[in-house]
């Protein structure tokens, strides 16, 4: 689980939640990261959209429960886009 996409998402999460990247795993979620509240979830959505130049639908945003789920979602979206 250390694909380049996963690494990029880990950096984004580390920037937004001010948590060292090394402490973020694919299981990290709002339950394990204190700073990951609803405002930060919006910031995370915006940062992903800005970084990867796509838009996330409401259904997709609801699926974003862990860093691992986010990474597979982003990989899927980038594949279908290309």
């Amino acid at each position, binding site marked *: 689980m250390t694909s380049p996409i996963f690494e990029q998402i880990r*950096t984004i999460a580390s920037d*937004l939640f001010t948590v060292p990247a090394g402490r973020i795993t694919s299981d990290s979620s709002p339950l394990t990261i204190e700073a990951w509240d609803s405002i930060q979830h*919006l*910031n995370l*959505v915006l940062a992903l*959209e*800005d970084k990867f130049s796509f*838009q996330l639908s409401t259904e997709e945003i609801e699926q974003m429960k862990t860093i691992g789920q986010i990474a597979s979602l982003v990989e899927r979206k980038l594949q279908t886009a290309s």
Partner: protein
Amino acid sequence: MTQLRADIDSLIASGSADAAYRCLAELWRTEKGPAAAAFVVARAEQLRDQLSLLPYRLAILRSFTVEPVVPLLRASAFFFGIDLTVQVGDFNAYAQEILDRDSSLYRFSPDAVVWAVRTADIASDLWQDFAHLSPDDVGAASVRVSDSLKQWVRAFRERSKAALIVHNLEQPARPSLGLLDAQSDGSQSVKVQHINQELRKIAAQHHGIYVLDYDALVARHGRLRWHDERKWLTVRMPVAADQLVHLSEEWLRFLVPLTGKISKALVVDLDNTLWGGIIGEDGITGIQLGAEYPGAAYQSLQRVMLDLSRRGVLLAVCSKNNPEDAMDVLEKHSGMVLRPEHFACLRINWADKAKNLREIAEELNIGIDSLAFFDDNPVEREQVRAALPQVSIIDIPQDPLSYAATLRDFPGFERLTLSAEDQQRTDMYAAQRKRSHAEQTFQSKEDFYHYLEQEAEVVTVDRATLARIAQLTQKTNQFNLTTRRYSEQQIAELAADPNWQVLSIRVRDRFGDHGLVGVAITRDEGNACEIDTFLLSCRVIGRDVETALLSHLSQSAAARGRQRLCGWFLPTAKNAPAREFYPLHGFELQQNNVKGSLWAFDLQKAQIACPEWIKLTP
């Protein structure tokens, strides 16, 4: 990317604040966006006490979600030396916040306030029901919006001295009437335009109220790309993720002139910057410069520079070239928009650019931190960045066709008011060069002063001079005894107070008009007149103008029955030229403390004489 982040954190941990700041700036240049903004803001909070930043407080009144824009704005402001604290008001609570004198808005005591309200929220009838409205309803709605804006702006001005930045109303991307909208003068877009025109008038009636052309901002980036309907409906955020940075940059464009973090001079390279190619190799017929592609890109850039010089920005050249070759182009090439007289300073030689920039700042009599550097060569830019971190380096894209837009987008050249002095600044510097040349032919200072036929006129504050007086208090660092900064609004209030006098001095001589170059603000209290502010633009330092102005103050204070003239000297890192001012004019030291020294002059015993070579008209 991850490595740079780790480096920044270890630099912070080891206490290397300046190095950490430079690395953060590099990160921001390459990764500007929501995630990097959060990273920068978190580190800025750790570094704020170790860097000399200007604290500034911004309140945002809004009708939509602006929270994600705040870190972007704080990060950008950080790299302009501004430590920004932001308070965001409740959704659609702006009217109560403005009207209630005890609201959280005023308790926050902001330096500036942004009013960010969408057309859809303040004029929902015009926005979504336009097709159903009768002409009378439309007229009434438009009057209602204009009147509300008028009332809020007036109420805000009565309650706060802060600057107010008001978003104007955006046009719908798809008007209700379709094609018919463009066929009638009572249409939806005409009504929105009309409200925006009213807003401009309202802003012009007060000091420190500025319109942000939100409609033009959205149009510039494309209405359809700007909006994100889904996020509006789900999280009350109408702006697309990749456009947020443009909104934060537009806010920053106001904060830079409001905080005085502006660039006063633009220093440009020549080869591959003002023209395509290298003059030393390609020759005057080989370089690219003219109305056709590719030379047109360079002409566009030169036109932007001409616009900036009309705004009071000084232009200077710093180029590694043979001076004869380069001057040949500047003087004779038919494609040049700019000519040598447009430049306040030319440094065409083979010396190191950092050394040249230092000399340019010295010759123009401005701080190194007032220079902005525009050079196509990334190596030169990096060398200047390393040697002179105070200089603003404009990052230039590869493609010369983008040069002009890049220069227009640089916030350091934004101004919120323009004085007559700004518009004539380049001519003033040309006169200054003639003056320095003449000075060398005289044996004594007195002979030179007589020859100059210097005339000074003391003028009281009025509408025409208010902006310039406030600007001088904000920008003057060297000959400034107390360095107290005042906004236009504050100057207007002092001028209206019978105990205060706000004066300025205009100087002209045989070479030209210097314009308003000095300010004195005094306050009568008991039998004393206290000098609150006394400053002189560096253009006329050492010409005895300060003595003329002080002489006027002593005479008018005596005429008002005051017995003593007193004033503080508050030392700063930059105002050493003013340190001896009071003792040199016979003032006696009253007290000395950590802040500064207080001086007084006994008006009953003596007067301060005006130098005989200055003709003073009070």
